[in-house]
């Protein structure tokens, strides 16, 4: 055990676990409850309190674990936010045709469980006439199945994490396992998440997903370029969601969904850069946010191109 001493947050997590265990039968996937108790990750400090040395150790330990598990070299990085960058996303709903190329590009890039299936992006289908008046993400149909899209008279709305400026999920987390980074990305420390799913209940967009079981990803499909608070393989019993492809975007690349979109409906950039495409569309296009009345202030903007 490298790090037996516990921080103040560690104590509060233990307290919470006790009460949660007594009061809430429904806390599923408490690490150690269902699977073998992993002392090392249980006593690990919160991500933001790790010293450089602890972090290096942790990354190395994870790389070894995953490389063995998936029988190929897996890198686990921890690249931090860039100065002067706050990410924003734009989605042109007048172009989206509902083909779901983004959904699967995301699954592959971000090592989502194939079975049981987890999709960070849901593409919702609406009657075009209704949708013109108001688009409610609780109403669309994600299960549409046509031979060809777009289907006549339909409109499509892809929804994933809205990377809110005021994220209700962060406020709901009892263990501070989820927080907002300086570049606006809301992340999750999978070693601190206790799987209580309060954040899922708090998210108005249904954007958080729970690993009910050990996620399954075929070794040949693992994306070996991972980030510690991003797309590294997740353990059983934790919550996960879109991170704007933190492992790509912090290195300057576009998210995988942007590159996969055949109609070019997906836009991404730095909100603080007046020359960026995201600023251009905020200035020149009609934009809206989902459930704007909740004042979550998404940094995910829908627009009409």
């Amino acid at each position: 055990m490298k790090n037996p001493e516990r921080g103040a947050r560690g104590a509060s997590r233990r307290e919470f676990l006790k009460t949660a265990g007594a009061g809430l039968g429904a806390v599923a996937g408490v690490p150690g409850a269902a699977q073998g108790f992993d002392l090392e990750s249980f006593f690990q400090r919160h991500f933001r309190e790790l010293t450089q040395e602890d972090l290096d150790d942790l990354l190395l330990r994870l790389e070894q674990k995953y490389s063995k598990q998936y029988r190929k070299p897996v890198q686990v990085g921890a690249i931090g936010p860039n100065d002067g960058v706050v990410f924003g996303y734009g989605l042109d709903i007048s172009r989206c045709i509902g083909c779901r190329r983004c959904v699967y590009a995301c699954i592959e890039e971000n090592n989502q469980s194939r079975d049981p299936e987890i999709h960070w992006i849901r593409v919702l289908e609406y009657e075009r006439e209704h949708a013109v008046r108001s688009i409610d993400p609780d109403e669309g149909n994600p299960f549409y199945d046509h031979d060809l899209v777009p289907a006549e008279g339909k409109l499509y709305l892809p929804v994933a994490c809205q990377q809110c400026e005021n994220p209700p999920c962060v406020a709901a987390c009892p263990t501070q396992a989820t927080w907002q980074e300086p570049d606006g990305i809301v992340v999750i420390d999978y070693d601190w998440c206790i799987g209580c799913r309060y954040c899922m209940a708090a998210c108005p967009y249904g954007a958080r997903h729970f690993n009910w079981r050990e996620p399954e990803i075929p070794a040949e499909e693992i994306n070996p370029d991972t980030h510690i608070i991003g797309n590294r393989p997740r353990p059983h019993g934790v919550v996960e969601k879109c991170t704007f492809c933190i492992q790509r975007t912090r290195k300057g690349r576009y998210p995988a969904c942007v590159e996969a979109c055949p109609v070019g409906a997906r836009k991404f950039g730095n909100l603080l850069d007046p020359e960026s495409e995201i600023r251009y569309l905020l200035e020149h296009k009609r934009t809206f946010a989902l459930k704007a009345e909740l004042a979550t202030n998404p940094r995910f903007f829908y627009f009409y191109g």
Partner: protein
Amino acid sequence: MPSQGAGAGGIGPGGPRAPWVLLAVVILAFVMLAVAGGPLALRTERPYPSRPLGLEPEPALLPPPPIDDEYFPCEDCHEEESADPKVRELDEHDNIELAHGDLWCLDCHDADQRDLLHLSDASPVEMAESWRLCTRCHAKKIPDWRAGVHGKRTGHWRGPKEYWTCVVCHDPHSPLFKPLEPRPPPKRASEIQLRIYGEQEETSDEEP
């Protein structure tokens, strides 16, 4: 390294003219590897000086896939001055279905130099630079495209990127975007729960 964007980019399979697009990406990646980080050379010889896009720095353009050998060079068949300007049913080129406003072939293709396209002032445009032709009638789209808001850019939001040119997405002869086969829908929650609980007795006492 500019090769990252095109090479690793997840250009969706089955997109419009997907095999062509993929081929183009592969070719582009090779070209970029060949110039090893230098300025992106799409074509080495240019018979006409190309006008700059007016962007700093000049972006890399993702050109349309090269035209099939069977049809290019066009001048193999179209010798000079053989053009017939009449709008008519053609005996050749029956793979082309024209559905673009009420345009006719020679509004875009040059009658005398068939390997080229032309603008309204008759100035020539290379096939690989066909986006310049589009600007002639769709000038309103160009600012959005330059800003990366109409069409698509791949690569880096900060760093080298490729601009997809118009005909990568729009068939110039029938430019409406063609419908695609969607990827499979998500499973319903009930099906997923069956996968989770159906075969795992030890967790079945916990309600989903």
